[in-house]
C-alpha cells in the first residue's frame, strides 16, 4: 500500500465517521432529502470563490452556511422543514453552480478529487471531526429530545433553537470536509445513507449512532479501495458502497 493511498484511506475514513454521526441525526430529524440536496449548495459557493480567486472550500462553506441558516429560519417558523422549498432552492443552486463553475474545475467540484489530498488536509479533517464528535456528544441527548417532542424539550428549558443551529452548523462543516473526496453531487448521500442503514439494524440510540459512524467509515474505506483497484472516481464508489451496506441491513430490519 503506498503512502498516498494510506493518506486517502485515513482521511476518508475520518470523514466517514463524522458524516455517519451527524447524518444519524439528520435522518432522525426527517431531513434525508434536505440533507442529500444540501451538498449541492456548495457548488455555486465554489464557483464564486474561483471567480474571485478565493479558496474554493471557503466559498463552499459560506454557501452552506447560508443554506443551513435558511433551513434553521424555516424550521423556527414552521414545525417541519419545508421540503419542497428546500428541494427547489437547493437543486436550483446546483444548476446555477454548474453555469458558474469554470470548465477545468467542474469535474473536481462535482465528484471531488482525493488524489490531491495532503497531510495538511488530514490534520484539518482530524481536528474538525474530533470537534464534531465532542460537540455532538454534548448536544445529542437534547437534540434527540427536541426531535421527539419540542414541547417536552422546551418545558425542560432546553434551548431548542440554539441546539438546532449548532447541529446544522456541524452538518455544513462535515459536508465541506467531504467535498474533496466525494464532491458536491454526492456528499449528501454519504451523510444520509450510512445513518439510514444503521436505523434498519438498531433498537436503541447508542447502537444506532455507533453503527452509523461505523458504516460511514466503512463506506469511505470500501469505496476508496474499490476506486483504486477499478480506476473509477472514488465519489460514486463510496456512495455505492454505502448503498450496498444499506441493502445488507434491510435483512436485519427490525
Amino acid at each position, binding site marked *: 500500500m503506498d503512502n498516498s493511498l494510506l493518506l486517502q484511506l485515513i482521511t476518508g475514513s475520518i470523514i466517514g465517521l463524522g458524516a455517519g454521526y451527524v447524518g444519524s441525526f439528520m435522518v*432522525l430529524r426527517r431531513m434525508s432529502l434536505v440533507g442529500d440536496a444540501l451538498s449541492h449548495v456548495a457548488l455555486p459557493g465554489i464557483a464564486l470563490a474561483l471567480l474571485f480567486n478565493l479558496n474554493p472550500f471557503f466559498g463552499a462553506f459560506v454557501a452552506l452556511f447560508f443554506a443551513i441558516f435558511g433551513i434553521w429560519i424555516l424550521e423556527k417558523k414552521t414545525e417541519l422543514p419545508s421540503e419542497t422549498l428546500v428541494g427547489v432552492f437547493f437543486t436550483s443552486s446546483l444548476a446555477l453552480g454548474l453555469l458558474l463553475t469554470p470548465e477545468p474545475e467542474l469535474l473536481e467540484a462535482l465528484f471531488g478529487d482525493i488524489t490531491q489530498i495532503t497531510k495538511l488536509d488530514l490534520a484539518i479533517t482530524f481536528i474538525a471531526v474530533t470537534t464534531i464528535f465532542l460537540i455532538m456528544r454534548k448536544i445529542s*441527548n437534547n437534540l*434527540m*429530545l427536541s426531535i*421527539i*417532542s419540542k*414541547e*417536552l424539550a*422546551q*418545558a425542560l428549558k432546553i434551548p431548542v433553537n440554539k441546539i438546532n443551529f449548532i447541529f446544522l452548523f456541524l452538518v455544513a462543516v462535515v459536508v465541506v470536509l467531504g467535498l474533496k473526496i466525494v464532491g458536491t453531487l454526492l456528499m449528501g448521500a454519504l451523510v444520509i445513507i450510512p445513518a439510514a442503514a*444503521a*436505523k434498519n439494524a*438498531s*433498537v*436503541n*440510540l*447508542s*447502537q*444506532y449512532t455507533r453503527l452509523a459512524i461505523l458504516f460511514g467509515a466503512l463506506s469511505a474505506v470500501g469505496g476508496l479501495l474499490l476506486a483504486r483497484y477499478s480506476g473509477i472516481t472514488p465519489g460514486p464508489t463510496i456512495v455505492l458502497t454505502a448503498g450496498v451496506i444499506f441493502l445488507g441491513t434491510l435483512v436485519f430490519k*427490525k
Partner: protein
Amino acid sequence: MFQAILNGTIIPMDSNVLLQVKNLNIKFNSNQIIKDLNLSVNQGDVLAIVGPNGAGKSVLFRALLGLIPYSGKIEWTENLKISYVPQKFAIDRELPLSSKEFLSFKKKGEKEIIDVLLSVGIGAEHKNDPAHRLRHITDHVLKQRLGWLSGGQLQRVLIAWALLDNPDVLLFDEPTSGIDVGGEETIYGMLKKLHSERNLTMLLISHDLNIVYKYANNVLCLNKEMICYGSPATALDSSALIKLYGSETGFYRHENHHH
C-alpha cells in the same frame, strides 16, 4: 380548599396558593385564544380543565409553563418543580430510542427509573410475582424501542418521565386517543394514588366529564374565556355545559360519585 368567586375576582381562602393567574390574555396574531382568565390553584388541588376543541386548554398549559408570550399575570410560588405531560407525543415506530435511554435523559439511575415505572403501574398484570414483573420491565419495556410501546404503556412511561424529577405540580394534557377505555380508567386511578402519596398538585386537561366528576376537586370550563369554575358538582350545571359544548347530550353526570 375552595375559593369564592365574586364578580370575577378570586379571593383565596387560605395561604396554600401555588398558582395565581390574573387577567390572562393570549393572542396569536389577531386571534384571541384566551380572554381575561382568572384562576388560582392551591397545594394539593386536582384541577380539571374542560372545554371543546380549540378552547385554548393546551395553550393555557403552554402559557403556565412559560413557553409562549401572554399578557396578564401568571404567578407560581417560588422553587416549585413543575412537570408536564404533553398531549401530542407521536413516536415513530422506527425511532431508534429505547425507553431506558428516554428515561435516562433525566440523568437518574436505573433503580430510580424502575421504582418510578413500578409506581405508574407498568407490568401491573404481574404484580403477584415481583421477579417476573421486574424482568418484564427490564426486557419488555426498558430495552424496547419507545415507539413499540402500546398507547397505554407509552402514556405511563411519559408520566414516569414527568415524575422522575419529583415534581410538586403535574400538568397532564390528556391525549384525545391512544388509550383504551379500560387503560384510561386505571391511569386516572394511578394518578389519584400518586396525588395522595406524593401530595402532588395536578392540573388535568380532560375530554371526559366522568373523569372530572370522579377525580377532580375543582373544574375550570374554558372556551376562550372562563365559562364556569368551582367544584365539579356545582360548577358543571346544564347552563355551563350548553355554553361549553352547545348541548348537554352525550355528557352524563355520575350521580353515584360523591365527594
